[in-house]
C-alpha cells in the first residue's frame, strides 16, 4: 500500500473518530497552507537573542567594575538595573510593537532584582542567618510578580511568581526546621495542584515544568520517608496513584516521572531483596521484564488517555 493510500485511510479514521464532516475538511483544505514560518517567530527569536546579549553585557560590565564600586553603586547597578528592566517590561506590554520584548525583559529583571536585594542586604545588613535575607527577597519578588500577574496575566509572570513562591516556602520550611520529608511532600503536592490549575488555564505552557518539579519533590520525599520501614511497599501504591493522576491531568511529564519512579522502585526492591537470593542474572531479568511491562503500559496510557484527550 502506498503512502498516499495510507494517508487517506488515516484521514478517514481521524475524521470518523472526531466526527469531522466533508465540508469541514474542504474548508480546512481551502485555507492557505502555512508555507513559511510566521514572521513573529523570527522577531521572537531576535527578542530573546537581544535579551540574552543585553543581560550578558550588563553582567560583564558589573563584573569588570565591581571592585572599584562602593556599596551604594553595588546596589544601584544590580537592584536598580533589575527594577528598570521590570518597568521596561511592563511598559512594552502597553505597545503592541514591543510586546515580544516583555518576556526576556521580565526574565532578566527576575535575575537582577533578587540579586540586587541580596546585595543590598549584604552591604547594609548586620550579618546573621542568610536565610532571612532569602525569605525577605522572595517575599518582595513574590508580591511584585504576583500583583503584576494579576494585572497583566502574562505566562512569564506566572512562572516567576511560582518560582519566588517556591523559594519563599522552601526557605520558610528550612527556617522553621520542618522535617525535610514532610516539607518536600507538601511542597510537591502543592506544586502538583498548581500545575493542574495551570493546565486548564492560558498558562498551560509552563504546567509541564511544575508537574516535573512537584512530582519529583513528592516522590523523592515519600521514598525517603518510607524507605527501610514496614510501609516501604506503599511507595509502589503512591507511584501507581501518580500514574492514575497523570491520566486525569493528561500530563505526559507526570506519566514519565511516575512510571520512572515505579521502575526505579522495582529495581531497588529487586536489588535489596532478591539480588542475593536469586542472583543478579535473575534480578536483571525481573527488572528487564518490569521495564518492558511499564514501558508498554505507559505508551498505552499515553495513547488512550493523554494523547487523544
Amino acid at each position: 500500500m502506498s503512502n498516499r493510500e495510507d494517508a487517506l485511510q488515516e484521514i478517514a479514521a481521524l475524521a470518523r473518530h472526531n466526527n469531522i464532516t466533508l465540508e469541514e475538511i474542504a474548508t480546512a483544505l481551502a485555507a492557505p497552507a502555512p508555507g513559511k514560518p510566521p514572521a513573529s517567530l523570527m522577531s521572537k527569536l531576535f527578542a530573546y537573542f537581544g535579551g540574552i546579549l543585553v543581560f550578558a553585557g550588563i553582567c560583564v560590565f558589573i563584573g569588570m567594575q565591581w571592585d572599584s564600586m562602593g556599596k551604594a553603586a553595588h546596589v544601584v547597578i544590580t537592584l536598580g538595573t533589575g527594577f528598570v528592566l521590570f518597568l521596561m517590561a511592563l511598559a512594552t506590554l502597553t505597545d503592541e510593537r514591543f510586546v515580544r520584548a516583555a518576556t526576556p525583559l521580565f526574565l532578566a529583571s527576575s535575575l537582577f532584582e533578587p540579586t540586587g536585594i541580596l546585595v543590598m542586604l549584604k552591604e547594609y545588613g548586620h550579618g546573621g542567618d542568610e536565610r532571612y535575607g532569602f525569605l525577605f527577597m522572595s517575599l518582595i519578588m513574590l508580591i511584585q510578580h504576583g500583583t503584576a500577574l494579576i494585572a497583566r496575566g502574562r505566562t512569564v509572570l506566572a512562572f516567576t511568581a511560582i518560582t519566588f513562591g517556591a523559594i519563599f516556602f522552601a526557605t520558610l520550611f528550612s527556617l522553621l526546621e520542618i522535617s525535610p520529608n514532610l516539607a518536600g511532600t507538601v511542597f510537591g503536592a502543592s506544586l502538583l495542584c498548581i500545575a493542574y490549575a495551570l493546565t486548564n488555564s492560558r498558562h498551560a505552557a509552563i504546567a509541564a515544568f511544575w508537574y516535573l518539579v512537584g512530582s519529583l519533590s513528592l516522590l523523592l520525599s515519600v521514598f525517603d520517608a518510607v524507605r527501610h520501614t514496614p510501609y516501604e511497599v506503599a511507595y509502589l501504591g503512591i507511584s501507581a496513584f501518580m500514574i492514575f493522576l497523570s491520566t486525569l491531568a493528561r500530563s505526559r511529564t507526570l506519566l514519565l516521572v511516575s512510571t520512572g519512579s515505579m521502575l526505579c522502585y522495582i529495581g531497588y526492591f529487586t536489588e535489596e531483596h532478591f539480588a542475593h537470593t536469586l542472583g543478579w542474572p535473575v534480578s536483571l531479568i525481573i527488572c528487564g521484564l518490569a521495564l518492558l511491562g511499564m514501558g508498554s503500559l505507559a505508551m498505552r496510557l499515553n495513547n488512550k488517555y493523554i494523547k487523544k484527550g
Partner: protein
Amino acid sequence: MPLKNFIKENFVLVVGLALPVLLVIGFLAASILPQSNAVPPQYEMLFTTTRYDQASSTPYNAEFLVKHGRLVARVWKNRPNTGSYAKKLMAYNGKTQSVREITYDLSKIGDVADYTEVSLEELSALHVNNATTSPDGYVFETAGYHGGWPITEIFGGGYHDRRARLVKGSAVFKLPENNGSLYNYYDTQFLGWVVPPQAEPAHEQ
C-alpha cells in the same frame, strides 16, 4: 459571593496555594505554642568547647570528666612555644537562656605527671549528674549541618547550620551563639547537669 465562586471554580489552585500555608500554621501550632507553655530546663548544663591557642598560655592542658558526682580535670603538659587545643568549660542556663564560661587556673596544680586527674578549686562546689537526660527530662543535642532535600535545595531550602539545643518532647531551647560558635558535635563535649547535692549522679564515668 465572588470569593465563594472563585474558590469553587479554582478549587485545585486554592488547595495548592493553601497547602504550604497550612503546613506552616500547623507546624507553628504543634511546636511553638507548646514551647511557650513548656517549663525551661531547671538544671544548668555543663559542656566543653574547644579553642585553638597559638601559643599555650598555661603549662598544662586538660580534659574534663565526671567522677563520683564531681568534675575532675585530666591534665597533661603543654609543649613549650607550640599551639594547642584548649578546652573551655561552659554552662548553659535554660532559665536565662544564656551561656557562661567557667574559668579555671591550671597553673596552680603544681608539678604533676601527665594524665593525672586533679580536682580544681573552682569546680569543687559543682555537683554533677552526667546522665544523658537531665532530671527534668531534657536532652542535649549539638549543632550540626542539616540538609534539606534535593528539590527544595534548588529553591534555597538546602543545607544550613542547626544550633545546639536542649530538647524535651516538642519543647526546644536553643543555645545562643558564642562569637559565631554554634557548639558543633566535633568541638563540643557534653559533661552533665549541675544538680543539688542530694540528686547526684545516675551514671559514673
